[in-house]
């Protein structure tokens, strides 16, 4: 089987609509949900100390629990923090099962040294991902190609593909970032 990675930034269907569709039996909505939040689940798991194989297992477990419990999710707008919370729990379970010697405490997780000082908490990560998914699609594509992709695409390439002038890319990117900041604030205020 090939291991092509799927773009995680292409859609902006609202979480509550995705949840509704998944409850109805819409398989494509289920796939969109995981393209969007699978990377969140795996990142949470990696931060807690799971290796990449374990993170894949955590993803499967979270998906099963989500499938079992989706009907009991009272506020579908909280899908992202809900999934991140399950991911956190399942990651500690997996570490406890497989590496009992590690004896991890929830608050002293083996974390990537980069995050020792300024560890972005699980909820922040969920909020960030949720906010990103609410950006207009062009912003998602632009930020993905200019800031997230490693190495990033050139302004020229992005301008050509988006039918924009190369000089407008910088200002648009900035607007997208500001918009992202606003969306994060809005989600923080609504307690999501």
């Amino acid at each position, binding site marked *: 089987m090939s291991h092509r990675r799927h773009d995680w930034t292409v859609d902006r269907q609202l979480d509550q609509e995705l949840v509704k569709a998944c409850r109805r039996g819409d398989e494509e909505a289920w796939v969109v949900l995981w393209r969007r939040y*699978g990377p969140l689940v795996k*990142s949470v798991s990696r931060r807690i100390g799971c290796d990449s194989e374990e993170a894949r297992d955590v993803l499967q477990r979270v998906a099963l629990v989500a499938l079992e419990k989706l009907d009991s999710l009272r506020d579908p707008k909280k899908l992202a923090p809900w999934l991140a919370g399950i991911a956190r729990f399942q990651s500690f379970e997996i570490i406890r099962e497989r590496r009992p010697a590690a004896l991890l405490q929830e608050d002293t997780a083996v974390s990537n040294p980069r995050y020792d000082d300024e560890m972005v908490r699980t909820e922040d990560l969920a909020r960030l991902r949720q906010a990103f998914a609410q950006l207009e699609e062009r912003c998602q594509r632009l930020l993905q190609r200019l800031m997230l992709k490693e190495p990033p695409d050139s302004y020229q390439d992005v301008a050509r593909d988006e039918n924009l002038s190369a000089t407008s890319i910088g200002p648009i990117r900035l607007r997208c970032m500001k918009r992202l900041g606003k969306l994060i604030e809005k989600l923080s205020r609504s307690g999501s």
Partner: protein
Amino acid sequence: MDHLTEAHIIDLIEGEGPSEAEAHLAECSQCRSAQRLWQERIESLREMSRESLDDAELHRLRVLYRQLGPGKDQAPRWIARLVRSSAAAPAAARGVASGEIMEYSAGPYTLMLRVGAQGSRSTVSVIGQIATNDRDRGIGGTFALTPPNGRVRLSDVDQFGEFNLPEVAPGSYRGTWWFGDQIMVVHDVEIGTDDEP
């Protein structure tokens, strides 16, 4: 100089800010923490972008949904049925009680469940084994016990087909095993304990 605007800060992160902005940053902790916040956001997004799902992962999730999702009962999956019980009289041929071994058959697989040692707070451990005679089929994956309400319990299934779920509360469960594309479901697994009335 006034505090840096968000635009300045973002430009700085990208290495495009004017030198006065850098000079301000060196002196102002407030702007430095704003910069750190944006750096963390960008790094976190990169991190998630790196964890984008591949075909194999999405395929497994699709299979899970097809097999266990709503309204998909017509999809092929193996429903395990009880074929043997070590209990003298298997009560209505249902599930597991302490000490008994229950053997289920599902497609090319056999599943054995028994209740093991007593855990804390009147819980028990559930020990299982999945086996097959079909050499082309592997063993592994995950086994889950799902109560009608409450916490789903999961265990990895090792390469010998063994799994162990500690601290399972007595009650009625649905068992689910999935491995790659394969799914087995066991309904009405009754977990009991010796000291029940």
